[in-house]
């Protein structure tokens, strides 16, 4: 039997649940109709040309590329859209920031890369790659049990040899909002030449960001984290910072990332941004209320659970990460899927190799606690009914799995 036949058999056996609630927005998301509608014309009606070629459909493509850059610039406190570079994902934007800066500055500026121990793997891996390939040394800064970096500890990592620091604005798994301004100030006062990159994929659209006021040098954002299509990311680069393109090929509008810009997806990203930034405060409050109802509802209804990450205003509004003790997280994702509730266990990158999430280990969770973790990500497309349905399903699902678990 071929792989596709096996997967089809699995889907057929699963069946279509009568109700579906998708909380796996960490890994991928549904694209709302209004965003799809914004993309469709760019496939075959307008702007389907190459955005750097001089004809009408090329210019139409170029127009939406720049409209989107201008919109992103506006939403992060910038006047100039020239500092925004499109890539084909957040992972690529992180790679461009880390590898691009280190390739350009592999001589003379220092050899130390400083990351937090809970960074996304698309930051950790390129840094380790640069260390192996170019002779840099990657060091990780520990975090406390809620995922926060202590500025005093960070200060002890920064010296004249530090060339690049990368710390997430919001953690992708446990939702910790770092005090990023304080961390940047610590880095810059210890070594003004050190460059500060932040992966803001989980912050953009969820907390206000002003790159000028914060003093950020480079920042990654991602379309799919705000209900835009997968396949578009962007990197903000402060004027004057030079990068070497880590990928080689035909350049288009972007001079740092080769390949033709995916214009229909960029048009979808633009629409998703417009939606995310309209009624910003109202939407955040709405999602936070839903998230609180879900998180505290689970704490109330299910015994032996732990919340991973902070339980205050320093947790991003859309994140609920809960460890269900005496349950294997992968088993719970399947059990919930059979009831139409789609979540992920551990981190996306880790879950496929059945290793516990490095984020949960770094905050001190035991292996069994990390393995039993479930990540829920909510948005303004969820309803109160979705949450109540989930709260009705989870206690029975957990109880059933605990009865057959060998851990107890």
């Amino acid at each position, binding site marked *: 039997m071929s792989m596709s036949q096996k997967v089809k058999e699995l889907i057929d056996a699963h069946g279509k649940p009568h109700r579906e609630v998708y909380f796996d927005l960490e890994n991928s998301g549904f694209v709302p109709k209004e965003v799809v509608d914004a993309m469709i014309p760019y496939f075959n009606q307008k702007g389907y040309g190459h955005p750097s070629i001089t004809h009408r459909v090329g210019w139409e493509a170029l127009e939406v590329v720049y409209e989107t850059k201008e919109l992103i610039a506006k939403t992060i406190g910038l006047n100039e859209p020239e500092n925004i570079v499109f890539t084909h994902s957040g992972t690529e934007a992180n790679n461009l920031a880390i590898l691009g800066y280190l390739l350009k500055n592999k001589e003379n500026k220092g050899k130390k890369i400083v990351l937090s*121990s809970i960074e996304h*793997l698309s930051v*950790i*891996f390129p840094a*380790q790659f640069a260390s192996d390939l170019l002779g840099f*040394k990657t*060091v*990780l*800064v*520990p*975090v*406390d*049990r809620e995922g926060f970096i*202590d500025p*005093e*500890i960070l200060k*002890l*990592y920064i010296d004249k040899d530090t060339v690049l620091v990368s710390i997430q604005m919001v953690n992708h798994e446990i939702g910790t909002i770092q005090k990023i301004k304080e961390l940047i100030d610590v880095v810059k006062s210890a070594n003004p030449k050190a460059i500060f990159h932040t992966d803001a994929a989980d912050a953009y659209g969820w907390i206000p960001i002003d790159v000028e006021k914060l003093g950020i040098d480079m920042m990654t954002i991602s379309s799919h984290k705000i209900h835009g299509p997968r396949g578009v990311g962007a990197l903000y680069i402060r004027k004057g910072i030079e990068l070497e393109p880590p990928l080689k090929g035909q350049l288009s509008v972007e001079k740092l990332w080769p390949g033709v810009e995916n214009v229909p997806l960029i048009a979808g990203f633009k629409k998703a941004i417009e939606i995310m930034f309209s009624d910003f405060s109202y939407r955040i409050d709405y999602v936070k209320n839903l998230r609180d109802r879900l998180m505290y509802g689970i704490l109330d209804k299910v015994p032996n659970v732990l919340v991973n990450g902070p339980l205050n205003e320093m947790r991003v509004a859309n994140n609920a990460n809960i460890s269900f003790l005496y349950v294997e997280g992968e088993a719970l994702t399947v059990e919930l899927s059979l009831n139409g509730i789609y979540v992920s266990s551990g981190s996306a*990158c*880790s879950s496929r*190799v059945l*290793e*516990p*999430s*490095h984020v949960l*280990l*770094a*905050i*001190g*969770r*035991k292996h069994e606690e990390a393995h039993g973790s479930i990540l829920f990500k909510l948005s303004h497309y969820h309803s109160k009914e979705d949450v109540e349905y989930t709260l009705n399903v989870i206690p029975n699902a957990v109880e059933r799995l605990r009865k057959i678990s060998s851990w107890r």
Partner: protein
Amino acid sequence: MKSREIDLRYVSVSCTSHPVIKLGHALAGLASENIDEIRILFRSDDIPEGAMKLFLSKYGYVVEDVKKIDDGSSLVIARKRT
């Protein structure tokens, strides 16, 4: 007196493994076990000595002694704050 040793010198570096990740993971476990004394073998390339002291203090441990070992690594001895 309950004592534990954590050796961070040979921890492999991968997506889920690193001396700093192991340290955070181990300290959380030890703090809940009421361990009186911790002895940690580490490389200051991985964790600066000052950062180690400060991080241990977050878990209620005070560094009493730091010794250099022949292979260039360090041994820190910390006791539970009373």
